[in-house]
């Protein structure tokens, strides 16, 4: 069964179409990667999947666990089992990281233990739980806080928006190892610009987003190899951008 299916999705923000005819699905237990240059629409696609109000679906549908969620509010999608680690989360003054985790808990005891373990694995000091979320956090701390939250949630679909951007090598190793261990066998949608995180996470498939549309889908490693070799200019030359079928990766 597919955990997530996106069908013919077109989206506008402030009157401008930013995503066009997006089609892809993630079978349960698979890890899919979303590649794309800056501004190609990766974060917008994530926010549309999450149901952020500014992202207006012009046409198409989104199905999660077999249920259509195209018009469902964000919190309900999350309650249904979607979890996200944001790339650039806002600081929320006065709201403690620990308070958010507490609010997310169902089985308190079990989750408390789980949080304790994840904190240890991430080498993330417990005093962050009593700090205002993301306020004055460094890049690495923000990533760890996001990953802590999404792993504590233990979602059915984990969405990771650039977990490797703005993170130094040592922290990337720590984060990569934790994600690799904790997400084994889980359904994941992973957004990455540079692909560093793929040293730690085995991906089943990748999709390349170019200028608001999926230009290419195929083996994650092969696509990453091409991107590293030729950059995204390789994708610009891709026949699919011109409406033709890509023979290399499909």
């Amino acid at each position, binding site marked *: 069964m597919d955990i997530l299916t996106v069908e013919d999705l077109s989206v506008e923000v402030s009157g401008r179409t930013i995503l066009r005819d997006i089609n892809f699905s993630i079978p349960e237990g698979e890890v899919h990667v979303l590649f794309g240059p800056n501004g190609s629409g990766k974060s917008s696609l994530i926010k549309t999947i999450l149901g952020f109000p500014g992202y207006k679906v012009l046409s198409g549908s989104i199905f999660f666990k077999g249920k259509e969620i195209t018009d469902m509010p964000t919190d309900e999608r999350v309650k249904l089992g979607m979890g996200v680690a944001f790339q650039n989360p806002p600081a929320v003054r006065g709201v403690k990281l620990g308070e958010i985790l507490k*609010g997310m808990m169902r089985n308190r005891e079990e989750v408390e233990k789980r949080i304790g373990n994840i904190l240890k694995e991430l080498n993330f000091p417990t005093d962050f739980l009593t700090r205002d979320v993301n306020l004055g956090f460094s890049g690495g701390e923000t990533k760890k806080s996001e990953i802590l939250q999404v792993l504590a949630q233990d979602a059915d679909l984990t969405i990771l928006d650039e977990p490797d951007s703005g993170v130094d090598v040592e922290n990337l190793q720590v984060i990569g190892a934790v994600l690799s261990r904790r997400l084994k066998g889980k359904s994941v949608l992973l957004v990455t610009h540079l692909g560093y995180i793929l040293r730690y996470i085995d991906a089943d498939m990748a999709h390349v987003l170019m200028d608001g549309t999926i230009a290419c889908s195929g083996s994650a490693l092969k696509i990453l190899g091409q991107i590293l070799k030729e950059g995204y200019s390789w994708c610009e030359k891709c026949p699919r951008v011109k409406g033709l079928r890509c023979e290399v990766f499909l």
Partner: protein
Amino acid sequence: MSPKTGSVLGRYSRKAQEWPSCPLSLLPEDVLKRSMEVGVISDEGERAATYLQIDHSVVFQAVQDAFKGKIEILNTREALKRYGWLREYWWRLVKTDADEYTKLADSLWDQGYFIRVFEGEKVTLPLQSCLLMSTENLNQNVHNIIIAEPRSEAHIITGCTVHPNVHSGLHVGVSEFYVKEGAKVTFTMIHSWAQEVEVRPRSAALIEDGATFISNYVCLKPVKNLQMYPTAYCRGASSRVSFNSILYGAGDSKIDVGAKVVLQGEGSRGEVVSRAIATDNAQIYVRGFLLGEHGESRAHLECRGLLLSDGAMIYAIPELLAKVRGAELSHEAAVGKIAEDQILYLMARGFSREEAESLIVRGFMDVSILGLPDKLSSDIKRMIDATTARAL
């Protein structure tokens, strides 16, 4: 009474209900409940001293046995009779002719409390006072004197409120604080009024060498109009003052709260921090005035305001005046509505929109700015949570 004072007094009555003195535990339940809503607790064992005034009557004043000889609490009329020297502190920091309300408090004076913390005494439990109005349409004018003798330390919590049946009235409260060398006073005032009550606190503090004065103000319930602008004179070397306020304006409340810090001593430091939330049709003015008169002095002003309704208004007015080189004064102010990206962030963690707003609002009313001991801090946090939970 001057004709002008009469005009301020207006339609308010001077005929107060007489209240006999009695211990807190024997107070009528509704009075007790209201007192507790402004931080007063009936278990006198948990407070070093207690003063309770209802209308113009002193109902209770006592120091707990363990603190006798360390602190003193009395009504000001009795205190002035007992101590001739107290005249030196009476109307010294606040002038009788400052405005029509000080004139009123001078000409028609209805008690108030005198608190004295003896030299070197560090009082571990808070002192409490409560000023309550139980008569509809009453005018109550109190005058308080607080003296912290050298190297003493105390927390004072004072609650001002009305009986649940009272809807209108005029409360004028003059408070003069003397924080002597090396002493530290944390004064936390909690107000809970009714929609037709007018409130005019008139306060000033004199802070000597190495002394610290922390003045906290919490106002969470609707009020007709409330205006105050306390002044702290940091006269001593290394004297410190903090004014912190948490304001929640609802209904048709007009709240105008500011603080003035005058930095006169070498190394003096001041801070004015406020958190204001305005909803319904409330209007909140948040002022602050930092005056640097010494070349080695520093102060900062911080105001954050949150608007929860389009009918409400928050007007932040920070003022800085440096009169000598080397006085470092700064301010930051931010007023706005709840940021949508913050709400969405919390919704992406499974909170509903309402839950997310409530979390943000509760977090915004940050009690940690008051710098109180854990117990007092959690009591105030509970009051704020109750207010915001009802509001959202």
